[in-house]
């Protein structure tokens, strides 16, 4: 049967079997493999997507039930390559290990924040009760959601700063740079000259040969 689904803001017309699960249509027909399958019975939450604002397990929802509805998957969180605040907090707070539960966690947390922008810690834990994680003990995940709602959170991971801030762009001092340039120029000239004379002798140009 033909279905019209709006996924991550884009309308899709798909041909789906009446018993097809929403998860299969997303993964197999639309190629949105960010949504994961962990149990196929609505217990682990790895397949969570947002349907009309509510978090649902796409492994226990028929595609036909999503007909005409607005669906958001993990691929729809970032805006034109810019990570959503929730995604950024998951990165900064070390909420990701193997990452297989992450898409579902993000979608459950996103649905929570849409409905309740300043949730208590207990609200967060209950909203994530249907999302199992075997790596993290949830500490960092809960902290990340808290932080994404603008609340103070004790981070499990404190990033030492933005990467580019720390990756100091080393520069060679002018005096040394002049020596480098000189050596490179001399070597270039020498190679050009040698190339003209004996093109196959290049391999012995370095002091220790090309190790």
């Amino acid at each position: 049967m033909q279905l019209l689904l709006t996924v991550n803001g884009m309308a899709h017309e798909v041909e789906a079997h009446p018993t097809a699960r929403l998860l299969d249509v997303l993964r197999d027909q639309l190629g949105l493999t960010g949504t994961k399958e962990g149990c196929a019975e609505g217990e682990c939450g790895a397949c969570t997507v947002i349907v009309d604002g509510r978090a649902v397990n796409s492994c226990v929802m028929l595609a036909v039930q999503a007909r005409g509805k607005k669906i958001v998957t993990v691929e729809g969180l970032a805006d034109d390559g810019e990570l959503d605040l929730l995604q950024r907090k998951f990165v900064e707070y070390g909420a990701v290990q193997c990452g297989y539960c992450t898409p579902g966690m993000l979608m459950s947390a996103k649905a929570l924040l849409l409905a309740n922008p300043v949730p208590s810690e207990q609200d967060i834990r209950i909203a994530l009760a249907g999302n199992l994680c075997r790596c993290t003990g949830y500490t960092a995940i809960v902290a990340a959601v808290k932080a994404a709602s603008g609340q103070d959170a004790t981070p499990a991971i404190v990033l030492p700063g933005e990467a580019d801030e720390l990756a100091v762009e080393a520069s060679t001092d002018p005096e040394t740079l002049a020596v480098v340039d000189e050596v490179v120029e001399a070597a270039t000239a020498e190679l050009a000259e040698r190339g003209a004379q004996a093109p196959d002798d290049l391999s012995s140009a370095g002091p220790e040969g090309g190790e």
Partner: protein
Amino acid sequence: MTDNLQYVGGSYPVHDVAQKVTGELVYGSDFSVPGMLHAKLILSAIPHGIVKRIDASRAEALPGVVKVFTCFNSPMDRFCRARIHPGQDLSPHDETLFSEHVRFVGDRVAAVVATTMATAQAAAALVEVDYEELPPLLTVDDALASDDILVHSTGNVAYEHEVDKGERPDLEGAVIVSSATSTPRVHHAALEPHVCIAQGHSTGGMTVWTTSQGVYAARTVIAELLHMEYHRVRVIKVPMGGSFGGKTEYIIEPVVAFLARETHRAVKLLLDREECMIATMARPATRTSIRTACTPDGELLDFEAATTLDAGAYASSTPDYSIHMCKKVTKVYRVPHYQHRSRAVLTNTPVGGAARGWGAPEMAAATEIHMDRVAAALRLDPVELRLKNMVEPFDTDLVTGLPLGDARVRECLERGAVAFDWAARRARPAGRGRFRRGVGVAAGAHKNGMFGAFPEASNMSLKMNEDGTFELNASLHEVGCGIVTTMKVIVAEVLGVHPDRIAAGEADTATTPFDYGTYGSRVTYVVGACARATAEKVKQRLLAAAADLLKESVTHLYVRDGAVRLRHDDERAIAYRDIARLGEMRHVPSIAASVSYFAVSNPASYSVQFAEVEVDCATGLTAVTDFLAVADVGRAINRGMVEAQYQGAVQMGIGYALYEHLDVDERGRSGIDGFKNYHIVNAPDMPDVQVLLVEHEGDDGPFGAKSVGEIATVPTGPAIVNAVNNALGTELSDLPLVPERIIAALHEPEEVPACSSC
């Protein structure tokens, strides 16, 4: 060297975090190849018997079905799923691709290969299998008592091991305490199911994409079983959604490789949750009896233990597992005499094998529950009793004869007791009402690689690119705990560049050098030491190139922030990218190095954990209300990830103590077939987990670092059990403490079985 660390000890996310939060990362289960076929296994429906007939005609008549492979049309060569390298021979080759003699509910009988997953599933349901049933041996006791019914013709005891070390002192006047503890068979519960894709090439070669923890051993198993030369089998590690040991052994890889070779196509096998639970591997169930003798003031004089381990239907790694259960106690406690007999026993139940901690959580449960009994018998505080007996730094392990290294277990206990406010909390009454509180403590140890038992080494190479960035070429197997990041941070520290300036990928037998893989708590300690040694060699080349250019002695130079700098002149520096320019002109040798690193030690890693619980005496439900994990990590390379690993490990340990078990019924079937009836601790049930790191530098790991991932979960279970016993005044020792057991204990105190019962 480590006084002024720039990157080590910081906190970093896993290397592929951006791809994980966007959904971009292609996990094994997401992976596909054009024209790929799909396989579905047909598993034995009975625990023990002989397959008499398989009728696949209806299945093969289904459009889209390529072929049904069975025990009657496939090779019956044997393989061993638990390999490290070709020379290792501890476990028997007792398994075939498909079984004619089926040995458990879940044994592979056949596989359907079809063009789509749906077709493969539909066809699998049409395959008819007739069995001649044999009496099943569903418990260790049944298996040990049976002379005529055998799981394998070699006998029902897969392996027997005994250690007897030290001298038993005079035990006159000693206090004798006995205990018996059992631990359950549990599911690893990695969120991503097992998956493998293999493609048979027209060249006669093959590519295998696997979510395993060791590509080289996968290649050994596949190549030997299929009689292929190694260079024709390329095994590539692909991103995986967790393992916890469950993907260490090569269970589906040989099957998928065979199907791909036979069909000359790419074949994908993705298991469902029930198949993962019953047909792959589980943490083995164990029973351990302990009898100790100690002086009236609590000094251990003698420690005798007997363990039986339920190996399930195939030996897998349980021989080594049973050996290792004998190597745990003497890493934690000094005792003049230690005797331990352990047996791995085959039964007609799901296969037991590698699991996070490799026998250590099982043995810590038995030991630490026992230690609380001793403390109770002597009216000593559990912390005090342990302090009287714990090893000191640089002691020798009585059983292995190896130095324990800078063993800080005592410091973990002392600092933890203060941080947890142990004495005051222990003194608080448990209460007599419906809700009772208690606190418990437990210690545990694990290893750092395989040195002492096995040639332990790693290989890698590192090169500088033309722009001064670096590429590390190593067989890394990321399982989710950040090992790629760990390696980058180690290299970054040595070279004085930000970790983001270093690229590192995962293992591929065709392109990355030999390494065993991510298991045995070897990665940080051994592979990380190799990374450090490799980076040091590259650094020497950078320094030599700069020294030549600057006309300075190498001893006057140091590296920091992407440049070689002059100690006595802050102004002078040569950026790596300018050294690279010299290299391009071949004025300096290539800035690259390859290193083979051989481990020189195998110290112990420790954790001491403190739990507070509240038990509801009406329902039997236990809530863990507070938790402190103290960790002797040597040095945290990635601090945030070390803490996060511990938080996750405690979650796993709570499940082990309170909820998780994979039992079989009298017909050999697991009543548990998914997460709906297998409880993983979820977010509302998790306590706040505090992590306290004990750092120092006395061992051979990079910057002093020791293993984390496995030891982290070792003492969690017994800390919780001890807390429950403290709350209720019980002597519970059969894990997990499900409500039925708690209620039963409240109404009828358990008898302590004698030591010989094991």
